[in-house]
């Protein structure tokens, strides 16, 4: 990769939100077109060929909320044999992140991984696209007072297994929990996303 400003916009935006997340004080004020800000920053140099976790995450998704594609070839084993509740490290192969859906109920989301996650057998698009996906919003949950447990800043559906992303080898440092042993996250961390637009229709 020659220069950061040649990267897809959505990836740059994803990196930019990472910044917000990482700046613990979160006191950066608003100024200027965001993409410009990122690409200017980004172009100031970075070791060629090294991807940040945020970039890699963005690359695998059409937009934040879309299921990631499968970034490896079929290995002839069932997905959940490696992508289980805790994930699995295999020497010389890497670490398979755990499934965040392990505890998802209601729609049998665990039964058929390839319904949403697909292998990529080609690396070339058929027709170029102008689609720009929503980048990952990594704002933190709010706290009532310093020391209070933060609220959950994202929707819980399909991500019921909190520890999949918030602990263990695949957890990004900035969102890694200090207390994985407590298990019942929702006891203290509440989902705060907006309610569905309309009231649910009773059936």
């Amino acid at each position, binding site marked *: 990769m020659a220069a950061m400003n040649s990267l897809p916009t959505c990836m740059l935006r994803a990196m930019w939100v990472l910044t917000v997340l990482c700046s613990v004080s979160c006191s950066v004020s608003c100024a200027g077109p965001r993409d410009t800000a990122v690409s*200017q920053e980004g172009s100031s140099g970075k070791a060629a060929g*090294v991807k940040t976790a945020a970039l890699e995450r963005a690359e695998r998704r059409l937009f934040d909320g879309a299921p990631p*594609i499968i970034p490896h070839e079929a290995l002839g084993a069932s997905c959940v044999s490696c992508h289980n509740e805790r994930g699995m490290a295999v020497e010389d192969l890497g670490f398979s992140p755990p499934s965040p859906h392990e505890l998802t109920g209601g729609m049998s989301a665990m039964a058929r991984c390839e319904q949403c996650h697909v292998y*990529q057998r080609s690396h070339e698009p058929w027709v170029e696209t102008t689609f720009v996906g929503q980048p990952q919003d990594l704002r933190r949950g709010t706290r009532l007072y310093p020391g209070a447990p933060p609220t959950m800043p994202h*929707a819980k559906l399909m991500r019921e297994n909190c520890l999949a992303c918030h602990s263990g080898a695949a957890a990004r440092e900035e969102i890694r929990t200090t207390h994985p042993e407590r298990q019942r996250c929702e006891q203290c961390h509440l989902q705060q996303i907006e309610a569905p637009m*309309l009231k*649910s229709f009773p059936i």
Partner: protein
Amino acid sequence: MKIDRRRFLTGVGAGTSVAAFSCSDREEAERLAASDVAQGLPDLTWSKAPCRFCGTGCGVEVGVADGKVQAVRGDEASPVNRGLLCVKGYHLPAFLYGKDRLTQPQRRFPDGRLETISWDEALDLVAQHFSRTLEESGPESVAVYGSGQWGVHDGYAALKWVKGGMRSNNIDPNARLCMASAVMGFVTQFQSDEPMGCYQDFEAGDDFVLWGNNMAEMHPVLFSRILEHRRQDPNVRIVDIATRRTPTSQYADLYVEFKPGSDLALANGILHLLVENDRVDQAFVRENVVFRRGIEDLDQIGFGAFGDQAERYVFKDRAEEASFDDFRAFLKDYTPARVAEISEVPEAQIRALAELYGNRGRGVVSLWCMGVNQHTRGTWMNNLINNLHLLTGKIGRPGANPFSLTGQPSACGTAREVGTLSNRLPADMVVMKEDHRRKAEEIWGLEAGTINPKPGYHAVDMFRAFSRGDVKAMWIQVTNPWVSLPNLHRWERKPGDGRFLVVSDIYPTPTTEVADLILPSAAWVEREGVFGNSERRTQQWNQAVDPPGQAKEDAWQIIEVAKRMGMGHLFPWEGDWHEPMFEEYRSFTLGNGKDLASYAQLKETRGMMWPVVDGKETAYRYSAGHDPYVKKAEGVHFYKAKGYGERAAVWLRPYHPPAEVPDDAYPFWLTTGRVLEHWHTGSMTRRIRQLHQAVPSAYVELNRADAAAASIKSGDRVRLTTRRGSLELLAEVDGRGAPPRGSLFVPFFDESLKINELTLDAMDNISKEPDYKKCAARIEKV
């Protein structure tokens, strides 16, 4: 987005490690933190819409920022999908943003050159051609070919223009290629189209019998509901009756493999055992069922593809009264031994299926889609499945229903309910009946006698007529027949042949390539609309973004042409016509058991299942306690079937062989279908990178033993040949689907490898739906 720069990890170990949260991440984070960036992202504006792809009708929330759709999420409040989507649904928003969107009307000159013209010029051109053709050659020479992807407004505007304005009945949808047999199944038995059950059956049933239906790939979210039900209740069973192993088979408790076309024998074999073993619910049959039989002679019926029938196929069935004793006598021949011989299904499995359908303690839901419908006896096969439920009384109750699934988002809502077929009018009415025509004329404010009583061309005959030159002006909207029609070489065309073809679409396709005029359409949330899904649920959505360039919604295009032809009185509404047009259409449905919800109510809800009476939807038609048209004490009441004394008809339907069977020259069966990642002819899903890259091109699946015998390996180039054409493809052995020996499968989404050049345009005698699922082929290594 420069996606070609993207590099993938090709194996878990290759490339950067997944857990590389090294100093580079931190450095970058710190560097960016020091810069001036805004805090937080702009919030997306969310609105509701049904998914654009299949007939399931999943609810999605559409996230918009900067005037573009940037995300979708499964709508947790939708009773259809409860927040879950499939891979197509999750990648939905990108289908709007392919770089080659059509944004301007374009006219083609005889030398093939395209010229961008204004809407005024384009609409004038359409109006002139249609007016002149009407004047010179009459209403039989104009045609509109529409779609189950038409929104309700588009289909209604087209129907009104063709039948009420041009006095023609040459309007037919691509749903003729997919749902017509299900329509005729319901119509011949219940005298009203569409299923009695709903998706709640997926949590209420005990046994789910899939007739030729690869639900895991074609209706994935509904299959998830069944799988979850089985996870919670281990007594639940899934039976996969199929002609090849698919991802669905992996989840089946019983896999039943039959020879293509022999499902007719298998279903009769099950009926035979139900009767012989006294598993018929006689009380239910006495109260609710009549028996009928029609023309059964193979020579008299034919296949619509050979001899004179290859040009125009007309067949009219008759309904003779019959009795239960006739039925028993008719079934005498379908002994397990004989059925096993025809179908190659082991006798034990036939008996197991009869036991399952006949078990009074268990609710059975039969599910089917294209396997049953795209069948030279598709209506018969629909009849036989419905018969299984009528004979056992497993119908009209939660968890016990025959349930026909649909493949397009508004095959039910538009094609079937609005009635955009050559013989139909809205809400179960037909042009052949005078009182039906009269009612339509009254609602439309037209003089009595305006509507033409003679049915027009059905889809396949419409294209045959266009190729002959009998149809001289044709308008195609939201569909891609030059990829999806069977026996494609028949329809080859060069613009400038004296006929006039208009195509409205959102992308260039093989169909726009042969058009004289291309009109750019607005899609999905670029306009306001209504779809109706497989469970009778009508779903409305609002416009969320502007269409690109000059693109306009299909209904608008039709209204503007109608006005230019002096038919503006058909569309009298000032300003925003979406609500008043829908309310006019709705007036057809009120009081006859097909009552739609008001537009205002549709706006407020996640869709409503008709009949909607007093603002309440109906989960189970014909069923006391659910359907407001049925009195409490009646149990089940088929009140729409006036012609049968308000009972349902069980039809005696024999086994007929398929139109073409393998022989020495063409020793393989060829079946075609879809894959999870692509939808129909792929013009939308192939423009979504993740989906295209998952399945970049069509391929041919073959059995391992056949492959070994011909020294073919996965990835080898092979040539597939039928009596209609030849195609080179890559072979796939032991892929996601595994056909049995002697059988091949090819998906039809790939416009550069058009398998429909090889398929046969034989069709169902009653529904006139072509059979894409079986013809004879040979395969050789290239």
